[in-house]
């Protein structure tokens, strides 16, 4: 019993995050999606096992079916109508996900307030972020803000009725996404640089950050890395996989699948990035200055971020 309790308390953040995402995911899949999940899973498995990207997972049984598969790709009904629904409903609906998250933060702020460290010796500073690290962080911030603004180009277009500005935003989103690739990679390496993959045989430790990071921070890092990878991979393939009139049937189902990956990953990464901004900058006073100067008062770290101080003093930080 004690072991179970200990396991729960040690992994509370992971269990609650997975549980919360599971509930939201179940409601989303069960009540808000209309496409054929069996086909979607079958298609994904078929693709991963070398079955090709055309979406044809069952052989044609008639000339007519063969003709349809060759020209248009298989099972249009499985995914495409969901796109139709997504464009007109989700774009309007998606705002409310973030409004709900902000409302939760407001409630938490009201209940828990803002943490402030008591600083008696402001001159005792600890270097937390190097100039390079800060550069990567701030460029990431700028690029992600640009990606969020331009990524909503279709939502802007819904309201403006199209035109040159959303057209420009849409094109900018693609190029900005490509610019983000090296910065995402650098931040991912920074997040995982202490993983000691080569010297540690534990499989779990290969994927979970070492050190004394709080579980919620680990989750945010993992989501950032995984969803970033999903966003960049799907985004770049969507951009460059350009089915023309003659290859449409071979690639369009794959592109439809990637569009979902892109939308899903963008919602998840935004959700956790907002969580990060709240937990690091809003609910704690004094963190923003350190992100600019790179230094924090030792007392600030002792009181509010002992995990970071522990890692720096043990040579695992920065």
């Amino acid at each position: 019993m004690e072991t179970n309790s200990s396991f729960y308390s040690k992994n509370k953040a992971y269990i609650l995050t997975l549980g919360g995402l599971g509930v939201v995911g179940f409601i989303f899949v069960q009540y808000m999606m209309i496409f054929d999940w069996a086909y979607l899973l079958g298609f994904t498995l078929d693709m991963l096992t070398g079955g090709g990207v055309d979406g044809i997972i069952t052989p044609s049984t008639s000339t007519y079916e063969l003709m349809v598969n060759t020209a248009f790709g298989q099972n249009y009904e499985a995914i495409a109508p969901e796109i139709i629904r997504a464009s007109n409903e989700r774009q309007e609906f998606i705002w409310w996900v973030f409004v709900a998250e902000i409302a939760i933060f407001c409630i938490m702020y009201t209940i828990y307030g803002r943490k402030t460290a008591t600083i008696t010796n402001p001159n005792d500073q600890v270097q937390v972020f190097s100039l390079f690290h800060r550069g990567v962080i701030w460029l990431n911030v700028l690029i992600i803000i640009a990606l969020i603004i331009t990524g909503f180009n279709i939502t802007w277009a819904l309201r403006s009725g199209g035109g040159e500005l959303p057209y420009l935003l849409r094109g900018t989103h693609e190029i900005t996404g490509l610019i983000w690739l090296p910065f995402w990679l650098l931040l991912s390496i920074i997040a995982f640089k202490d993983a000691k993959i080569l010297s540690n045989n534990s499989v779990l430790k290969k994927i979970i950050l070492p050190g004394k990071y709080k579980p919620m921070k680990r989750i945010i890092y993992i989501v950032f890395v995984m969803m970033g990878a999903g966003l960049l991979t799907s985004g770049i393939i969507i951009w460059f996989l350009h089915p023309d009139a003659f290859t449409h049937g071979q690639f369009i189902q794959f592109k439809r699948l990637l569009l979902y990956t892109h939308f899903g990953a963008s919602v998840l990464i935004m959700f956790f990035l907002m969580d990060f901004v709240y937990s690091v900058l809003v609910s704690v006073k004094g963190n923003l200055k350190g992100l600019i100067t790179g230094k924090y008062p030792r007392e600030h770290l002792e009181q509010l971020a002992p995990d970071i101080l522990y890692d720096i003093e043990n040579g695992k930080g920065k």
Partner: protein
Amino acid sequence: MSKPDFARMKFYCDENLCIDCNGCVVACKEAHEVPVGVNRRKVVTVNEGVVGKEISLSMACMHCADAPCQQVCPTDCFYIRADGIVLHDKDVCIGCGYCLYACPFGAPQFPQDGAFGTKGKMDKCTMCAGGPEETNSHEEFHKYGQNRISEGKVPMCASMCSTKALLVGDADEVALIKTYRAATKGKGIATEPMGW
């Protein structure tokens, strides 16, 4: 409101007559000065090389009555004329590609003429009916190509079809031709085309 004396403008391609010559594709591209990389019309061949089973179909925008592209477009750039031709306004299009995801036929085409190959504005078959610009103006030709329908002409692809496999017009009339062809199949000049 009086009952219209026509159905809807439709394409029909007879798979028994199409010989995959791609004349329609070339005629379309030449007539509308369609840029390289964009094909408003394509010829799809099934069972290629299999004797007796190979068929070809010339395809473009099907000008659907319940057009998925129109339903998904976030900017409502599509409009359907009274005669059923589905057209779009390039000044409103933002090139998001939703119409491509929704179209079962792969009709919407996107030139990769932006910076670093980013997509341009959507281009598709207009059934030679131009766009929302002034009819037969330079702007209309530049954006959408010729407006042959306004001149009472058959779209270029069908007019150039050497075997008359590709038909276009009022769906009632097209259906009559198809019925006639089916009834007279194998008789007189209505024989199978010679394949190359």
